[in-house]
């Protein structure tokens, strides 16, 4: 879990705060992207989430891409109405990000990687 090592013990309260922020954002993300076949929207969604993950969650994310055409039962099981849908399974709360993930701001909000303004 803890990918980053504490380089040095906290010197003061400012350091302690930064450590806390680091810990909070250091959980592993479990993400599932539901797509339907190889439509342009599906492809764009895959590309977008990969970019974002690489940029913000490097080495601490698991991304699963599921084609609902191949696993239709999962649509009902996971309650996927719109596609593409990215489901943030972990960390809690579970959140669904609908669309091709092109609005980067909203994706970051949705993944709790950025505070809402």
């Amino acid at each position: 879990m803890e990918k980053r090592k504490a380089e040095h013990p906290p010197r003061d309260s400012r350091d302690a705060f930064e450590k806390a922020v680091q810990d909070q954002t250091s959980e592993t993300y479990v993400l599932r992207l539901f797509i339907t076949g190889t439509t342009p929207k599906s492809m764009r969604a895959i590309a977008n989430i990969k970019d974002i993950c690489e940029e913000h969650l490097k080495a601490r994310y698991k991304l699963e891409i599921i084609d609902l055409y191949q696993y239709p039962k999962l649509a009902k099981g996971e309650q996927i109405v719109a596609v593409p849908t990215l489901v943030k399974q972990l960390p809690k709360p579970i959140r669904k990000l609908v669309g091709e993930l092109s609005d980067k701001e909203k994706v970051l909000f949705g993944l709790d990687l950025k505070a809402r303004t």
Partner: protein
Amino acid sequence: MPKTKKKNVMPFLAKSPTGIQGLDEITGGGLPRGRPTLVCGSAGSGKTLLAMEFMVHGAVQYDEPGVFVSFEENEEDLKENVASFGWDLSALSKQGKLSVEYIHIDRSEIEETGEYTLEGLFIMLQDAIDSIGAKRIAIDTLEVLFTGFTSDLIMRAEIRRLFRWLKEKGLTAVITGEPGGESMTRHGLEEYVSDCVIQLHHRIHEETATRRLRIVKYRGSSHGTNEYPFLIETGGISILPVTSIGLNYEVTTERISTGIARLDTMLGGEGYYRATSILVSGTAGTGKSSVAAGFVNAACGRGEKALYFSFEEAQEQIVRNMRSIGMNLEPWIKNGLLRFRTERATTFGLEMHLALLHKEVSDFEPQVVVIDPISNLGASVTALEIKGMLSRVIDFLKMHHITALFTDLTHGGTALEATESAVSSLMDTWILLRDIESQGERNRGLYVLKSRGMAHSNQIREFMITEDGLDLLDVYVGPGGVLTGTARIVREAEESAEEVIRKREISRRKRELERKKTLLETRIAELHEAHAADEEELQRFIDEAESRQTVFQETRKRMAQMRGRD
């Protein structure tokens, strides 16, 4: 009737029967087969129920399995809600006849990050449809999709695609939606992509709610265009088509007593026809309820069952009042021949009254039904609705071979016939009770305004409510008009006085004649006597003459002898 109608329409457009009472009649056989139908109505208007009933009947009666897609209620809630209608969704689901798909959409859990489609929904539907080989599908309600997602543009495109897709699949679909401010639906889209649009209303009129249904459009088919009241009763939805119910029920020539001997006489001597509708109307206090009670009393006396709906008086009150005029209804209540149903007219809307009537009649199976009065029902609804309800009630009762008597309160001042013109055409027999006011008195008059299919009296009779029951008396029709009550009695007294005098005169004359006869006979006897005296006299004279002659001849002979004839 509905069946033949269905057959007539079938060649033009295939229809899926809904099995909902009344709806198949007004749609001419059901919803368009293989096409989407939109059911729109506000919250609580009964659209979910309509959709569910369509699915359940499809699964149970028409061998058309279905998928019920619910966005609002989950499987458990839905199962519980419809269990009260006697529909066991779990069983149907196990038998592979009906599956409920609950799809949960919560906007707060959704972040929109770009373009999307509702392909997931399509996949879900496809899977559900394939799993039971569905022929029908219900989607309740589209509104949730619109509120769950922000992009109106995408939703509109996807909804269009959904309707097209359902059509391609050949599914008979019922999709529910909510009404918008200006258009029929909130998004003004669904009604255009549907082949049939049914609108549901839940309208409050003078504080009483009535449910309404209207077929707004039906591509390629004729349909009833009226607003039909409907009710939600124990068996589901029941729509009351005003005109479509059959008029071809069996008729009978059997007659039943009115409970008033002379009224029977007025109605061709035998009373009402069985299984007809009778209207007894009149102003306040003219004895409408008494006529109704008399009818019920007579029916129970024949051993028939009677159901009495009272919207004005309580059971005990009616029983007490009728006892005071010589009718004891209590034994009938005790032995189960008479059942009362008393309810304030304003307690329910029209639909509930109807439901009640249907239920009671079905439970009790009476031969005679009284509704007292129908005018009170009008307190909460319009005349048109009353007429709609009554025609439905009458048809229903006639089909069950029940004789129905309705009382109607007319208001003073208006023309007696005018107020009921709305319902009079539905009635087979119409008896009018009226006040006859004269010489400081108020008396009751009764006449038969119409009675279909029988020669009936055209006379006004005085209607008497006495301690010994109800009776009709001849009214005195004199030069001064119709006389009733005291005036009639006075007139009758006068007539009887004259009668006495006439009788006396006759006996006097008889006596006189008798005397004359005696006199005559005396005189005849006298004459006979005189005649006999005369005869006697004559005989004496003749005898005298003869003896004189003899003496004369004797004398002559002797004289001749003495003279010595030579």
